[in-house]
Each structure stands twice: as C-alpha cells, then as structure tokens.
C-alpha cells in the first residue's frame, strides 16, 4: 500500500503536480533509490509521448476540417463547370435573342405596356366629326375642311334601262355629286 502511494507521488512529481515541499521530499527519497529514479524517468518519457500524441491529434483536427472544406469547394466548382461551359459554348440565334429578352425584360414590358396604352388612348380619344369646317379625323379617315376638299370623281356609271346624268354642286358645306337616272320609259324627265 505504501509502495503504491509512493508510485502515485512519483507520478505526481514527474508531472509537476506536487507542492514544493512534497516535491523536495520525493527528490530526497530518489537519491538512494535507483528503482524509483527509473520509474520517474519512465513516467516522464510516457508523459512526453502522450503530450506529443495529443499535440499531433490537435493539429490533425483542423487539417481534417480544411480537407473537408476543400473537398466541398472542389465539388462546388466541379458542379459549376458544366453551366460555365454551356454559357461559354457557341449558342444559336434564338438562344441569344431569348437571352437578350431575358436581360431586357423589364424594359420591354414597360415599353410594350406604354405602347399599348398609347394605342388604346388614341383609339378611344379620337376626335369626333360634326363640324365640316374643321379638319377632323374619325378613325383613319380624315374629314378635311370643306374649302380644301376636291370634287368627287365618277369612275364608272352604269344605269341599266335608263340614262344617267352627273351634276356637280359646291357650297360652303362641301361638294355633292348628283347622279340622276332617267328611265327609258319615262316620257318626261327633269
């Protein structure tokens, strides 16, 4: 029992865990005890071995983490490479047009909506006709001022079973073309 206690004290002494006084006593007892000195040296070597191993283990943990991180980075790069390759590869005209529209989508939508709104307003808020002295537009057909209008033109006149006469008249309201038909069986016409 006393020898076991002595061994514990030797280990504590080797590890520097004893108080100064107790450590001095142990050192004194070692002077004449070759076996105890051998034990202390063995305990010291063992302690060095343990500390060395622990330091190596401590160094190994961050390295393992770094290795894992690099593996993740390499994996991510490997996954990104195909899309990069696709982007750099020659693409067709349609793909380029689509990409351009994708990049300018917001501008195109704003422009198209604006153009549609303007077209709708132009259709809805069209000037109405009525005053023949004013140049007005009802849809695509423009009503010019009466003074600027050219007289009507008859391209062809067919009056089956009668005779046709064309008369022109003009006043401040505009022109009128009169096509007067006199049936052949009318004894007295105009």
């Amino acid at each position, binding site marked *: 029992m006393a020898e076991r206690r002595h061994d514990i004290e030797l280990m504590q002494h080797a590890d520097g865990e004893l108080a100064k006084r107790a450590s001095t006593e142990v050192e004194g007892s070692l002077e004449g005890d070759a076996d105890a000195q051998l034990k202390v040296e063995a305990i010291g070597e063992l302690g060095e071995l343990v500390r060395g191993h622990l330091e190596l283990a401590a160094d190994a943990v961050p390295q393992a983490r770094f290795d894992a991180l690099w593996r993740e980075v390499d994996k991510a790069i490997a996954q990104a490479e195909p899309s990069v390759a696709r982007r750099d590869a020659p693409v067709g005209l349609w793909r380029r*047009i*689509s990409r351009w*529209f*994708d990049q300018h*989508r917001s501008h*195109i*939508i704003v422009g*198209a909506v604006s*153009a*549609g709104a303007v*077209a709708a307003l132009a259709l809805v808020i069209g000037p109405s*006709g009525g005053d*023949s002295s004013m140049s007005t*537009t*009802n*849809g*695509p*057909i*423009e*009503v*010019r001022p*009466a003074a600027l*209008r*050219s007289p*009507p*033109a*008859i*391209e*062809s*006149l*067919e*009056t*089956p*079973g*009668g005779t*046709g006469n064309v*008369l022109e*008249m003009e*006043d*401040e*309201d*505009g*022109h*009128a*073309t*009169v*096509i*007067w*038909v*006199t*049936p052949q069986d*009318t004894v*007295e*016409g*105009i």
Partner: protein
Amino acid sequence: MRTRIAPLLIVGLLALPAVATADPKAACEFVEISATSAKDPAVDPELKPLDKKLKNPPFSAWNVFHQLSRTEKQLEKLKPETIGLKSGKVTAIFLDLIGKSKVRLSLSIDDEAGKRTVDNTKVTVEAGDWVILGSSTANKAGHLTAVTCR
C-alpha cells in the same frame, strides 16, 4: 418561364403595327328622301346638312323634301352591304381609302320593283361630301338616296 415570355413579347410587339395598320372602316350614312311639290315649301329638319343643295337644280324642281329613312352603316373594305330603303335598296362597297380623306365606293340601286337602276357605279368622294342618286317617279315626284362617309 423566361423563355416563354420572350416569344409572347415578340408576337405582341409584331401584332401592334398590324393592329395599328388594320384596314379602316368607313362610317357611311344613307339618307332616303322624297321630293314633291306643294304650295308651301317644307324641308325636314333632319335634312339640314343637305338643305342648301336641295335648293339647287335639279332639286329646285320640288319644294317639299321629307326624309323617308336614314341608315348609318360601318362599311368594311371590299365587303358589300345592302341597306334597305322605303322604296328599294342600295348596295354599297367600300373599295378603298385614297390618301387619308377620300373614300372610293361602289354603289348600286334597286327600285321598289326590284329593278336595278344604278349598277356598280364607282365614285371617289371626300369624307364629309355627298353623293346623291336620284330619279323621277311616275307622279312627277322625285326619289333621292344621299350617301356620305367619314
């Protein structure tokens, strides 16, 4: 999703000019008028736009003008439209828009007996001006069909 939006936008943008340049329609009025003579002259107020013209020959032979019917019709280009009258019918075709203000029309008139008195007569008239097709009837009255488009 983006690749679906792009073609739709292209179609929409291409369709805008097509809508803007769609064939115009001509808004035409067909006014049927009876012309007679009486002691007191009378012209229906609805005929005010034609009042001055009705005072000129050959209409000055009469002094009473009544509106028998008035029909407004949107004429589509090259689509014949038949407008019924109190006495007969008129068939009109909007042939073309010349420039911005001239309407080219084809006009045909059938009398109340179904006899065609005017057949496919082509006339180009400024928007707002009138084409008046008329004939005298057996009782010395007149029957007029006035057409204007805008």
